């Protein structure tokens, strides 16, 4: 007995001895930039100095960050600790990406920050900093910041003169994040007692009416973007701005300002209560060194790290003790935001909250752009909400499907076996099959593994429903849902048929423009005697060389309501500037303009090549016969171009059909999802509507079917054109 005991002791001693091996650094991922990043680096250096544990930081682009986390962590290759705002906590939790904060003492943090991180009574992550909105006041223009909305309304007329481009107040009024505080201030609630989102409330209608009134009386600018707000405030043309802590870094050095809490709504005596966002250090559920990871996450959220984050990173610590430090307490920006955060409503981390954004954005913009009365907006939002909210379809039995696959396999093999023997033996029919295999195998293997397998997985996903990290087999329910439009009329943006029609229109308009512009240019450029031909050709090809997400952002900027070059041109021509993304026609036109710019060079190059392959003698013969230039174009150029252009047209239309970047980045589907095409709709279901991968996959399959039909149709065209060719 004692011998065993001794052995066990020895083993423990050995393993204890083995434990402090030269550990690999803890991995910490984040998407911070600038001062916040510097502060985080310093905070982790403090941690290393104290514990001896190295930390390896990885800074990621915000746009790719969430996708990376959800892919990496389940595969065990994610970080030990990662920093993210708390809004996505419920998704992270559902996918089992985060571990409970085991080293957390609730009293260290502000209660509403802890509340934000609770799921079923368990706290996930360590709250680092608070983000909420407050009022920036230009102290030269406003001596006494307004404490109530009545006081605000009294001051605004003197501060505003829309004709001169001056506004009493400015904020991104079309963004629900900014509007939510008004809803709460007017006594509205976003969720009813059962936790379901409710839009059709008194508070909602009154808050919308209030803001609409501010806009109608031109106290606040219309369609303000972050860039407009910044430039108005820096030029002294906006006396007050509603924004978050990040705005402080954008204010010019010559502007005197202070930050105060948002005013109290006089009608209800409730302060305008903005959402509270909590930047959080989460411990990955798959961290191999949970304890050290917990220690790191806790360390960077408290104490010395808080001080560094506040002073260097200009963050608003969620750590109570930080405000006992003089340099934090006396920092007016930080203490004012801390004050403002007291009244803030922790943004619910529920999946239900994620379903609120899209309907509210729609309703808010509908009211501000006119056309919808504030009291009707709730119903509008509710309708959209119900369209997006899908109950889990009943589970289907996979048996019939397995049976179907089995039957098909059986049928196939019977067909192969019973097929009449070929007239020629295989070797004779395909004499060089061995060589072909040798040549084709490497490419085929690559394509099979990295293209066809993901493709097949994508196809089969469409038969599943994905919710909270789990898939359930639902058969064709997703397709039924999409094709039945779930009770939405065919002409509404959310119906599949409406989106399909927009997509087809989009593809046709673009391809026609690409081909006609490309062909026109090719005709101009084909003359070998043309001087500067090479220069023109090079200049006209440039759009092709620019990555298309850069093209999209660049054109998005050109269509900006207040600063866009297009409106600049219109004004220079003494025309009215256009608000591009508030109407379907103009938003669609903006998308088309962008995509035309990026797509015509490809067609131009194809057309140039095709034109060169037409024998010159044909034209000379036609000339002799006295055919006019137009006849020559119609009778020679067009028919001979057709076989060369058709494949390019097919490829071009497939690309255009799935041209996600342009739609997503230029119009973003505005207004109200009207300009979304099928592929951007699929993206929204997959990534913006609680990860309904199955439903998105069903959309993708339908896109695929449509394109398949289209290519079959064009193949016919090709065949008939080659018949024309003889």
């Amino acid at each position, binding site marked *: 007995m004692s011998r065993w005991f001794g052995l066990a002791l020895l083993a423990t001693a050995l393993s204890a001895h083995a434990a402090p091996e030269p550990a690999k650094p803890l991995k910490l991922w984040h998407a911070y930039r600038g001062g916040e990043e510097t502060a985080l*680096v310093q905070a982790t250096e403090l941690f290393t100095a104290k514990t001896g544990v190295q930390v390896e*930081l*990885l*800074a990621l*682009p*915000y*746009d*790719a960050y969430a996708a*990376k986390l959800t*892919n990496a962590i389940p*595969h065990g290759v994610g970080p030990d600790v990662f920093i993210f705002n708390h809004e996505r906590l419920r998704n992270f939790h559902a996918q089992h990406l985060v571990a409970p904060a085991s080293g957390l003492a609730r009293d260290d943090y502000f209660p509403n920050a802890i509340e934000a991180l609770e799921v079923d009574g368990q706290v996930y992550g360590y709250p680092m900093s608070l983000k909420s909105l407050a009022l920036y006041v230009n102290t030269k223009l406003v001596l006494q910041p307004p404490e109530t909305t009545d006081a605000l309304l009294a001051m605004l007329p003197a501060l505003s003169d829309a004709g001169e481009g001056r506004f009493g107040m400015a904020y991104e009024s079309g963004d629900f994040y900014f509007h939510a505080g008004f809803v709460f201030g007017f006594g509205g609630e976003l969720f009813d007692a059962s936790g379901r989102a409710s839009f059709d409330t008194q508070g909602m209608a009154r808050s919308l009416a209030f803001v609409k009134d501010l806009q109608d009386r031109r106290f606040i600018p219309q369609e303000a973007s972050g860039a407009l707000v910044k*430039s108005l405030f820096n030029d002294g043309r906006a006396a007050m701005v509603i924004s978050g802590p990040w705005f402080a870094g954008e204010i010019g050095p010559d502007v005197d300002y202070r930050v105060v809490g948002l005013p109290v709504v006089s009608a209800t005596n409730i302060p305008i209560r903005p959402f509270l966002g909590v930047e959080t250090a989460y411990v990955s559920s798959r961290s191999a060194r949970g304890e050290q990871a917990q220690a790191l996450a806790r360390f960077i959220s408290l104490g010395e790290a808080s001080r560094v984050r506040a002073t260097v990173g200009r963050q608003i610590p969620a750590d109570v003790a930080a405000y006992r430090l003089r340099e934090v307490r006396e920092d007016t920006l930080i203490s004012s935001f801390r004050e403002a955060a007291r009244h803030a409503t922790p943004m619910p981390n529920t999946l239900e909250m994620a379903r609120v954004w899209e309907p509210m954005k729609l309703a808010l913009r509908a009211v501000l752009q006119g056309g919808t009365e504030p009291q009707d907006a709730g119903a509008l939002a509710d309708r959209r909400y119900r369209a997006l909210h899908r109950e889990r379809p009943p589970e289907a039995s996979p048996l019939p499907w397995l049976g179907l696959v089995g039957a098909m396999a059986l049928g196939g093999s019977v067909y192969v076996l019973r097929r009449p023997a070929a007239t020629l033996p295989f070797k004779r029919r*395909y*004499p*060089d*099959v061995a*060589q072909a295999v040798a*040549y*084709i195998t*490497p*490419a085929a293997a*690559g*394509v099979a593994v*990295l*293209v066809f397998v*993901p493709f097949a997985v*994508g196809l089969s996903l469409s038969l599943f429903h994905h919710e909270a990290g789990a898939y359930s087999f639902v058969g064709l329910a997703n397709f039924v849902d999409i094709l039945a439009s779930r009770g939405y009329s065919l002409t509404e943006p959310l119906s599949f048929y409406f989106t399909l029609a927009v997509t087809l229109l989009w593809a046709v308009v673009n391809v026609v423009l690409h081909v006609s512009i490309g062909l026109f240019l090719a005709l*101009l450029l084909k003359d070998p005697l043309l*001087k500067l031909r090479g220069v023109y*050709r090079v*200049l*006209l*090809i*440039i759009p092709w*060389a*620019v*990555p298309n997400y*850069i093209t999209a952002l*660049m054109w998005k900027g050109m269509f900006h309501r207040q*600063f*866009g*070059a297009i409106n600049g041109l219109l004004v*220079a021509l003494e025309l009215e500037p256009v608000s591009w993304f508030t109407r379907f026609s103009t938003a669609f036109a903006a998308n088309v303009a962008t995509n035309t710019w990026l797509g015509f060079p*490809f067609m131009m*190059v194809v057309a*140039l*090549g095709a034109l060169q392959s037409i024998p010159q003698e044909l034209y000379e013969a036609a000339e002799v016969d006295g055919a006019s230039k137009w006849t020559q174009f119609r009778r020679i150029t067009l028919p001979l171009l057709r076989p*060369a252009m*058709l*494949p*390019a047209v*097919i*490829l071009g239309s497939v690309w255009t059909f*799935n041209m996600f970047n342009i739609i997503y980045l230029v119009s973003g589907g505005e207004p109200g999802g009207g300009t979304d095409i099928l592929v951007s709709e*699929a*993206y929204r279901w997959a990534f913006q509507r609680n990860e309904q*991968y199955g439903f998105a996959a069903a959309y*993708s399959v339908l896109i*695929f079917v449509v394109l398949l039909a289209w*290519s079959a149709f064009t193949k016919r065209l090709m065949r008939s054109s080659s018949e024309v060719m003889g």
Partner: protein
Amino acid sequence: MNRPSRLKMAAIHAGLTLLCMATLYPVLWVVKMALSPTDGLALTANPFPDTVTLEHFRQVLSGTDAAGRWVFGRQLLASIVVAGATTLVGLTLAVSAAYALSRFRFPGKEGGMQALLVTQMFPATLMMVPIYSILQKLHLLDSLTGLVLVYATTALPFCIWNLKGYFDTLPRELEEAAVMDGASTFQVFVRVVLPLARPALAVTALFSFMTAWNEFILAATLLNDPSRFTLPVALQRFVGEHKVEWGKFAAGALIVSAPVMALFFALQKHLVGGLTAGGVKG
């Protein structure tokens, strides 16, 4: 062919100049953003900057990681390696497959060509999750090799189509003559066919290069080491959660686009003849 009249030439020049200006206008705006010291915004149609500074370029070029090490150079190198390797791998695979599809008879040939086109029809957004799992099974996560393989295979369908189309247009007599002279199929392929297909090879190479050079979502998702990030990932870092650093983004965009433009200029002679967009002249 008689010389077109002076008037007509003038009209053509005028038209082309106008269209070139329309094409360049958006690009000039990016240049303006990159060169302007602040993003001082005003409603104007003038695409030329009022004051010029190279500060944004300096900041992008001297990009450092969190620890203050200079990483721009290494990211540039990573980009070149990834795009170069993608081109090499993609072209090698595509050339041999396209040759087989063009010259040999074997079962499943038509179906294979169709299947390649079909893959272009499925939106890429949903492919990420399975690709990630597959790369993990192959132990190719967080490696440039994995990234190169994904890029090369995604570009393959277009490359094969384009090359096959071009091979179809090459006269077979030359190959037959070479065979008569005792060359093996492989020798014919390397010594006769490939040199003739140079324009199509150039275009296909350019296409593969661009696919790899411009992509950022996959690169950011698959790689875990900032010194191996490709340039578009570094560029995308200027687009934050709350704000975009437009000046630096524009400067970075120009830096990222410049090599591709240079390649376009270098290859533009081949571009016209080499783009068959899949079996045209045959």
